[in-house]
């Protein structure tokens, strides 16, 4: 394992309430560079809310979020992405009326520039930059086996491919940290197995740090090195995957007692 010791993501005391509900309560997590880290927990535990806090969709009531040395707490969603956080969504959010290729090219937006006028008048820089963008986008599409669907409208892709395209689009922004919200939701066992391979490939090939939310325990056990378990907004426990999955408290939280 080639893990650096500097934490890439360091979150402390993160909390948010909606009305009377403490959706996330004093949440801590430390993800090291290069790690494949899992965030699990029963339905409604607050996992997606954590992602929304990390990406500035919600502002935390208290708590601090550091990406390497940068304090990204309270930054705007757009700036958090520029700082290096990419994410996907539990309920897929693609640009449905854009082509598959264009979805990825929107992801490349902040990495390749030409002016509005150069674009409208099709000046040389428009041509050269668009060419580079196409090449970059195709490279990513190939990783996810989507290059043959490049000209399709994103909304017309089958479900599993939509999930992959969402990851490709986010990777196009060149993030340091990738947040995946239930990437295997709605996939059949074969697609899930394929996805596991892709996630590992992305980690190795792009030198990525990945924090993922997942209900599929096979996937979690198969690829995550460490886990944090969330229950009723609180961290139930964190640690090495096997230790966590075999812990009696986690098992009860999942099976539900009371």
């Amino acid at each position, binding site marked *: 394992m080639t893990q650096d010791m500097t934490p890439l993501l360091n979150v402390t005391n993160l909390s948010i309430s909606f009305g009377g509900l403490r959706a996330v309560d004093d949440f801590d997590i430390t993800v090291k560079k290069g790690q494949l880290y899992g965030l699990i927990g029963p339905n409604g535990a607050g996992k997606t809310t954590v992602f929304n806090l990390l990406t500035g969709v919600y502002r935390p009531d208290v708590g601090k979020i550091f990406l390497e040395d940068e304090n990204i707490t309270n930054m705007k969603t757009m700036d958090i*992405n520029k700082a290096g956080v990419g994410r996907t*969504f539990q309920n897929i959010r693609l640009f*449905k009326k854009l082509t598959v290729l264009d979805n990825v090219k929107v992801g490349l937006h*902040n990495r390749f520039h030409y002016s509005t006028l150069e674009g409208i008048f*099709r000046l040389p820089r428009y041509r050269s930059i668009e060419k580079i963008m196409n090449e970059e986008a195709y490279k990513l599409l190939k990783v996810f086996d989507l290059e043959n669907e490049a000209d399709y409208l994103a909304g017309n892709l089958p479900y599993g491919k939509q999930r992959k395209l969402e990851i490709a689009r*986010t990777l196009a922004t060149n993030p340091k940290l990738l947040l995946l919200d239930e990437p295997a939701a709605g996939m059949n066992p074969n697609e899930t197995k394929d996805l596991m391979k892709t996630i590992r490939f992305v980690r190795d090939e792009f030198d990525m740090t990945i924090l993922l939310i997942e209900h599929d325990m096979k996937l979690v056990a198969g690829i995550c090195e460490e886990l944090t378990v969330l229950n009723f907004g609180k961290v139930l426990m964190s640690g090495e995957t096997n230790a966590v999955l075999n812990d009696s408290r986690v098992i009860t939280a999942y099976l539900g007692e009371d």
Partner: protein
Amino acid sequence: MEKIPKIWRENLITYGMVIIAYAVMQILISFGLVSRLVQGLLVPLCIYVILAVSLNLTVGILGELSLGHAGFMCLGAFAGAFFSKVTVDAITFSPVRFFLAILIGAAVAGLFGFLIGMPVLRFRGDYLAIVTLAFGEIIKNVINALFVGLDSNGVHFSLSDRAALGLLDDGDVIINGAQGIIGTPQDSNFTVGVLLVLLTLFIVMNLIRSRDGRAIMSIRDNLIASESIGIHVTKYKLMAFSISAALAGVAGVLYSHNLNSVAASPRAFGYNMSIMILVFVVLGGIGNIRGSMIAAIVLTLLPEMLRGLDRYRMLIYAIVLIVMMLFNWSPKILEWRERHSLRELAGRLRGRSKV
């Protein structure tokens, strides 16, 4: 990668339609086959096409509802006419003067688009529709009450009456309240109108197929996702809205230089006009640039064509509206069109049948 040529082909068809329609019309005119009535409609047709295409940038491409497009047209009309009236003696070469008037009309309308969009576009929801509706009416009413005069002391403004301007003997009233601007040079003609239509199409269609255009459409399709990949949502909303307003300003300049006067009447610049432009966009297919153009032409020409039928005129007009609505929006027909499109046919002839 056969993607770029495909877009080019689509765009060329759109330009081609405009150029062919222009050529056919010129030939018909030269043979004396076009009535005075229809000849008088040619410049308005260009104006409506520019308005419809530019509004589609806001409604169809950015995905925000604007109900004040006529307000931006009004600003452009008066800014351009003001300039032309003031400089009519100084710049005698009319093409240059008109070119400058168009730039000024576009700049003023675009600037107001920016100023209005800045506070409003930050919010989500239908704020823009309400604010633009109000703005359109305010602009029209303010200009309707506005008196502007020019004398050797400079420019004078008043919102009450002409006398309040206190002009010297050498002075001249430029904007005369409800009467507007009288004596603008009639620089508009069908050829210039068609050139401006082509320019509008060029700007809008090329913008859509560029880095900025993709960002704008991504906001329309999913704002949260767009932010999550680092798109500056406010910037691109403002960009689309301002360009749309500036192009409406161009249509306004064309309007105010078509006859020799322009007044801020409700008929020309009221919300009914804004709604009519919106109808062109909706019927032509939201986000469909060529559709906006065709809808604007058909729905402008039709009432005039049907004048002879007198009593049944509005009935036929209504039927055409419904048919166009179905043609552009019914899922079954959309599917049928997809299957029978020229592109699909060409694909099948070449022996591949991709979507």
